[in-house]
């Protein structure tokens, strides 16, 4: 991976907009289409809110790390990690409409949105140790950087 950029921020939902702006700024250098940029921002927004809401439940804030990189010439990789509670059953968590939510009206569509908007997503998680979601997307338009 080249052009690696790492950032870390508090896992507060207040930073959700900042997380997607950072990803958008990074991706912009690769000259994505407006549609691709929206898709990247949305996937990052989902991964960040998962980390903030589910990684650190009960307002027990930790940090969320974002590592962005490029596989030349045109593939963007974004890893979003937390050191929170982890996911016990990854396959179940990724099912459309699955949610642990009981009253907050969450849709359970976060992973489905990430899968739809990115080419590939990978989830590594261990209970008690945290979760890393890797988002990979090949951009259609490539003019070099």
């Amino acid at each position: 991976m080249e052009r690696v950029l790492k950032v870390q921020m508090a896992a507060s939902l207040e930073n959700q907009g900042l997380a997607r702006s950072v990803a958008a700024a990074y991706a912009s250098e690769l000259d994505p289409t407006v549609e691709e940029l929206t898709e990247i921002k949305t996937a990052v927004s989902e991964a960040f809110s998962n980390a903030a809401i589910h990684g650190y439940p009960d307002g027990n804030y930790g940090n969320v790390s974002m590592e962005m990189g490029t596989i030349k010439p045109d593939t963007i990789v974004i890893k979003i990690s937390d050191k929170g509670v982890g996911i016990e059953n990854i396959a179940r968590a990724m099912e459309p409409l699955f949610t642990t939510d009981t009253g907050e009206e969450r849709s359970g569509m976060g992973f489905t949105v990430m899968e739809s908007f990115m080419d590939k997503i990978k989830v590594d998680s261990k209970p008690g140790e945290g979760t890393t979601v890797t988002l990979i997307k090949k951009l259609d338009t490539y003019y070099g950087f």
Partner: protein
Amino acid sequence: MDIIFGIKDNILVAEFLGEVDHHCSAKARADIDEAMEGYGSKNLIIDLSRVTFMDSSGIGIILGRYRKLSASGGRVAISGGTKAVRSILNMAGVFSIIDYMDTVDQAIEYLSRKEVS
């Protein structure tokens, strides 16, 4: 995100402005529920024309309002929204249960007609 509320023909129009994400969703839900009660309206249009960004939190806000209103015999319609916004709602099957119109005026006319018939 901000929400501008308006009322026409006893239909509450909630116009979403800006970015819809989990950070703002709890307040958005509370604001809409409060406005529905305040105006005493049982029909709701959620206008997404001026939404610049939306993630899956929008699905929860919209389906939550739909559940509440349909339980009390009210109707909900959605208007506007970019292709990306509509694509997220579509993933969750929102348009199979909530009617969609291109513009808020069409949605008002549609719900008013349903009310009469």
